Structure formats: C-alpha cells, structure tokens
C-alpha cells in the first residue's frame, strides 16, 4: 500500500535534498498511493464524499509543507491518516455545532456518488459507533490497514484495535440484521 522510498524529486521540478544513507519518500508517489484510502476513510467517517476530497487535499497540503520531516518517516501514510482522522473529528464537531445553532443550514447528507444501498447502510451504522471504534473500522476497511498499522495511526495498543473491531463487528452485524438484543 505504501510507495517505495526513492531518491527522485517531488512534484516534478521540486527536489528533496537527501542523505545517501537515508532514503526519503517522494511526495507524489505517497500522494498517489495514499489518496484512495484517505478519501475512503474521510468519506466513511463523515458520510460526505465531496467533503472527503477537500479534507484529503487539506491533509496533503499540510504534509507537503512539512515534507522535509515527513519524507524520512518510516510510514508517511500513517502521519497522513492520523492528521486526516483528526480533521474528520473536527469536521463532525463543526457540523454538530452548525446543526445546533443554525437550523436553517442545508443538511449534509451521506454519500453523493453512486454506491450500493448495502454500502450506504454499512457506513451509516458504522457512523453511529463511538469515535474510536468508528475510526478503527474506517481505517481497517476503507484504508485497508492491519491492526498494527491502525494502532500506529491512533497511538493506541494493538489489543485495543482488535477489541474495537470485534465490538464494532457485533454491533454492525446486529444492526444490519435488525436484532434487538446485543
């Protein structure tokens, strides 16, 4: 899922000074490889695919201006996902504030591009989960991360990720089946 470290420049005309013993990531290759997963995670967490692209662009601008530092990280994608997840939380908080105080605002409804009803229902239920399990599920399915990678992004123990995923699975499947018990 990650781009390979390379000594090439980033964004064509811009180059990265580098130490021969220390490979650096190329911005464009990281951008292209991480973009689909980032957009999917943002869309899953916010329910807004158009807004998800904006959040990912903002995240990648932040990454670009810090690229000297991020390019030498082991996994730049983890940094991008960490920042994106924080941005999604802010977006949801802001939306909650808008709904509280500005009832006249048009509502942002979920998923604007064609996706199946089953998928809409799945993410609709996921978004009812508490914040951390919701994020874990999004990173697991939308970004295709392993539990170890998710633990790295969220800065929590791997066991917590596993436990969140198990709890999320129970809740999501029960909701999809219409079960009334837990």
């Amino acid at each position, binding site marked *: 899922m990650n781009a390979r470290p390379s000594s090439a420049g980033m964004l064509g005309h811009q180059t990265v000074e580098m130490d021969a013993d220390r490979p650096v990531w190329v911005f464009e290759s990281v*951008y292209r490889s991480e973009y*689909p997963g980032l957009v*999917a995670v943002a869309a899953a967490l916010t329910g807004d695919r158009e807004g998800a692209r904006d959040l990912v662009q903002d995240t990648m601008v932040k990454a670009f201006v810090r690229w000297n530092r991020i390019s030498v990280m082991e996994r730049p994608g983890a940094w991008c996902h960490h920042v994106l997840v924080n941005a999604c939380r802010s977006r949801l*908080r802001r939306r909650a504030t808008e709904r509280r105080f500005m009832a006249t605002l048009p509502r942002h409804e979920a998923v604007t591009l064609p*996706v*199946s009803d089953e998928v809409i229902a799945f993410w609709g239920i996921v978004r009812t989960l508490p914040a951390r399990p919701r994020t874990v599920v999004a990173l697991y*399915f939308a970004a295709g991360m392993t539990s170890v990678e998710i633990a790295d992004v969220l800065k929590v123990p791997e066991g917590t990720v596993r436990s969140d*995923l*198990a709890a999320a699975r129970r809740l999501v499947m029960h909701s999809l089946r219409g079960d009334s018990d837990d």
Partner: protein
Amino acid sequence: MTDFIDDVDTEDWEEFERLGRRAGAELRTAPPDSAIEGIERAVRRRAMTRVVAGTLAVALLAGAAFAMFRGREGADDTPVDQTTEPTVPLPAGAPGTWRELADTDLPVSTAFDLTGTWTGSKLIVLGGRSPQGGSMVAAAYDVRDDAWQPVAPPPEELQSPFGSAWTGSELLVLDGRGHVVSYDPDTDSWRARSAPDVDVRFAGDVSRFGVSESGVLARSAGGWWWYDEAADVWSAVPSPDAQFDRANSPTAAAVVWLEALTPDAFVQSTYDGPIAFTVFDVSSKTWTPTREVEIPPVTRMPPRCQTADAHLVCFAEGSGTLDGVVIDVGTAESMSFTLGSHSNSLSTVGTPWFGHAWRLLLARTAEWEALPPLKGVTGFSAAVWDGQEMLMFGTTGDTGERSGPFAAAYTPVVKP
C-alpha cells in the same frame, strides 16, 4: 486479516469482512490529476502570503523614507500584522461589544506566564508552572466550533518563563533554559527541537529571548544566538553595539527588553535616560544603528517595553497613573500618554494593540478605545487577534459573580 478473531462466530466475521471490504472499495477513488496540481497551488499561495508579509515588514522598517515623503499617513498605508491570517471564515460580534466564548475547564487559575497563540483557526493557550510547582497546561479553542479541545500535555522539562510563536504549521516554544519544543495541532503532539551546542541559558529572564514565526533570537553570557525554525539549527550572530552591552551587565540599572517586531525582525530596547532601541534583521543577521527617543519623566523608571504592530510601547506605573510612550520603530516618531488608572490587567502582546486597564491603544494610529466592562472579570492574561476580534483568555476575581477561567471575544470599533 482475520487472524485476530476473538470469538467463535466465524460466519458473522466473514459476512462483516465481505461487507466491509466492499464498503471500503466502493469509497476508494484515484486522485484526479488536477488534485496534485491543487497541492502546488495551495502551497504557492501560502508561500506568497509569507513573501508579502515579509515585504511589508521590510517596507515598514524603512518607514523613515515613507514618512519623509508622506508623513505619518504614508506609514498608515503599510500595515504589518504580526498575527497569522485567519484560514477560515470566522464569527464576529458587533463593533464595541463582547462575545462570551465557550467555558473551559483548563486549570489555569494558579498558572503563571499564560500566553495565547493564534494559529489561523485556533487560540492555543499555554500556561507556566506556578512557584509551587505543577505542570504546564495547554488547551486549544476552535473559533469555528466555539469549543475547547484538549491538547497533549507539554513536555515536562518545559518551564516558565517562555516565549512562543506560530510558525505556520506548529507552535514554537522556547523556555529560559534553552529548551525548544513545538506543538503540531494536526497531530496533537509535541516534539523536541535541536538544542544549542553551547551552554545557552537565558537565566529565566523572558527579556533575554524573543520568538517569532521564523525562529528564536536569544542572548546568553556567551553571546547572541539565532535559532532557524525551518532548518532546526542554532548559530551565533553578532552582538548589538556597546550601549546594550552596558545595559546587559549585571551592575547596570537599565533593563533590556527583547521582542519580535515582525516575523523577520526583533527589537531590543533599553532605558538609559532616553529609550534606546536597535532592530535585528533576520535575513541579513545584522543590527540597525541604535536610535534614541527622549521620553517625558515618569514617577518610576525604568519602563517596560513591548511591541505592537511594529511599534514599541514603553510604559511605567506612577502613583495612580500609567505613563508611557508609543514609538514608531521605522521613523522613531513618538507620542506620550498618561492613563489615570491601572487596576486591571489586559495582556495584548503579539496583537496590533497595547492594552491596559480596559483600554486598547491601536499603536499604528495612536487611537485609544475604551472597553465596556465585563461583570466579574478582573483581567485577561492572554489575547490574540484573529483579524476581526480580540480573543481573550483570563481568570475571574473572587466576586461571587464568576469564578475560574474565562474567555471572551471583543470586536473593536477601531480597525487595524
């Protein structure tokens, strides 16, 4: 990926996996080519903003030339705002009114050296340790959400007093023991910056260092040092002239003040009879020749000096009065003032204003504005300017009407 299934309902897991994989796949989209060009445009816009700010700062430092041709009005056309431009549409109240902000449970009532920094969308409050000990505290107020957000605890080694500035992406903090750290709100994490090679101790004296978005200028017994924020490197820089060396000596009566004037310039000032000041230019690493401004006699000297919108405001408390002088650093023009009361504190360091006793002085135009009272509020110890409002953070007195930390925004009638 299901190697960590922790219960026996395998069928459920498989269905969950199938659904989840499909749900993830349907949301994935490749980046359009225009998207990566958008990154370049956005970064170029940010760079251009910095260049324009730097150019304006240089223009203001050459303010004498403007004044010769156009008088003070010439300088008025070249505003230099040290504060970070807002990156989002922000709310604002009616001019001349207060707007109360969301409550915070930040434990600042006993904290000292509280500072506020504006990031373009958030006010980050950082508080020093009290003499009784304890840890620094930090919190962030998001203007768009009208909500306080927790901030990861600052590093334990950080001690008061300290200086801070917003670099464009991080909160840069230097304390009096030479610790440099930065906080990234996007990742809610702190990181240590490189330490100076020499034994740079600023002796717990906040006047011995200044912090701007470009870096840190600091003096120690061993000389002067510049910390380049972008390169994360310390280097020795020349000392200013002998007048400040005298004032720096332990036996000198005068106090020296050092503060960021603009992102790329620092001003050092001292009272040596008149107010003397010299400006350090970051790009050339040189000091301007020292200039002096005669000030009216006040009851107690030396005064304290702080910067506001590329001006120096030097002030000292007398018997029931606050006497001071506003100095245009570019032209060395000055204007003295006397205030009748100084019972309430109003810290506005880093904003275009000088604030005291519920009054704001817009340094660039020398206009005063009286603030309407806020019941139960005794003063504000941190303030930032978001481009429309002064966001202020402080504590309330033991009046029974309010208690604990308090935040409010004031929309000035006078615009910078």
